[in-house]
């Protein structure tokens, strides 16, 4: 029997279709199936009443409602925002791993920093003498730890490796080193560079007593400190 015919029989048996003259007379197989479905429908209707009595009570329901409490506020907004945020974060990390050249600018500062640290001699700090003692005891010089600039955790070539790679090249002149220091100073932590060991000496402004012809103000001259200059009278 075709499925379409069987569906029609089901609808006939469950009262959802009328038996048309074209359907009659039904063959034996169809008639048997129709009887089967009619019997099934009657059994289903009878099953409706075959339900044991319940023991539900309003008190039981009230207790259950009180126990479970009112429903909490749904936090769908941030829940839905969490998934895209995580996906974006993962995508950014993956992108960062695929394109490490995105840090080219930062790397130039770090190279200058590495060069500076490689060339700069270690700073020797002398411990102060004890106050009670009049005799200055010999104190072993202590090597102070190098200031650690605020850097990322990325793997960089060590200063020794950098020196080894540049062994065949002459060291940069002082002027070039000063430029590198100035450049790296802007990208590094100020606290690390302002320490007495690493900070560049401040310039001195000399204010003269003579007035300028154009502005009428005292003339000021900016000079670099030197050992052979005496400031003041």
């Amino acid at each position: 029997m075709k499925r379409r015919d069987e569906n029609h029989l089901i609808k006939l048996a469950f009262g959802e279709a009328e038996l048309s003259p074209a359907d009659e007379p039904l063959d034996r197989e169809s008639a048997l199936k129709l009887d089967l479905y009619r019997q099934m429908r009657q059994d289903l209707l009878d099953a409706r009443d075959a339900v044991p009595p319940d023991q539900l009570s309003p008190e039981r329901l009230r207790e259950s409602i009180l126990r479970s409490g009112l429903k909490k506020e749904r936090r769908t907004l941030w829940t839905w925002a969490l998934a895209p945020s995580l996906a974006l974060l993962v995508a950014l990390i993956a992108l960062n791993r695929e394109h490490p050249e995105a840090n080219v600018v930062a790397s130039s500062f770090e190279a200058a920093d590495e060069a500076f640290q490689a060339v700069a001699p270690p700073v020797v700090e002398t411990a102060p003498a004890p106050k009670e003692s009049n005799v200055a005891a010999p104190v072993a010089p202590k090597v102070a730890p190098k200031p650690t600039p605020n850097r990322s955790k990325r793997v960089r070539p060590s200063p020794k490796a950098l020196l080894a790679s540049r062994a065949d090249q002459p060291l940069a002149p002082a002027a070039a080193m000063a430029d590198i220091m100035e450049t790296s100073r802007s990208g590094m932590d100020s606290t690390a560079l302002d320490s007495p060991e690493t900070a560049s000496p401040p310039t001195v402004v000399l204010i003269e007593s003579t007035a300028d012809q154009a502005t009428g103000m005292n003339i000021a001259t900016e000079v670099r400190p030197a050992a052979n200059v005496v400031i003041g009278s």
Partner: protein
Amino acid sequence: MIGARTLEGLARTAHDSDSDEALVLRARDGEYSAFETLFHRHRALVYRFAYQMVQRRDDAEDITQEAFVRAYQNLGRYRDEAKFTTWLLRIVTNLCTDRTRMHQRRTGLETREAAGGLTWMTVGDTDDPVQNLEQDQRRAALKAALNALPAHHRTAVVLRDIEEREYDEIAAIFGCSIGGAKLRVLRGRRALRDRIAPLLGEVQP
């Protein structure tokens, strides 16, 4: 004339105040007795439907109670587009489906048990077992066969052929179109027939 109009309005008001929607509004405003009225009115329907789905009295009671608890907690989300009973039966359907998933193993055992029951009834000493089946035996067989159906088929058959719900309501409960609901019922009936046919003497192809 005015008196008749007033009486008609009062009757309508009384009828409206007694409707499910009005009771829901009152319960939403904090009047718990209105929700208890809803419970008394629909508990038999919910329990009967749950029992037909899970075939166990204690499970059906638990589901009924849980359905009303969820209904109370979610009264603010109920919209008047659907009937209250439709909304309630949708909650019960979800609970029954969850329960069925939780008790997969038990359902499997019952399925095997039902299959054994059918064999016992069809492989008898008599030539025509259908004639010898008593009415209660046939009901028990139908119960077992219904319990062996997948949850979506069982839900469709119970809603339509036991609870006699209209197709638009079944569609609202399932969250599908009316045509989809008709198709589900049709497939459920056919699946039930496949399981129950040996009981009634039909030779399977």
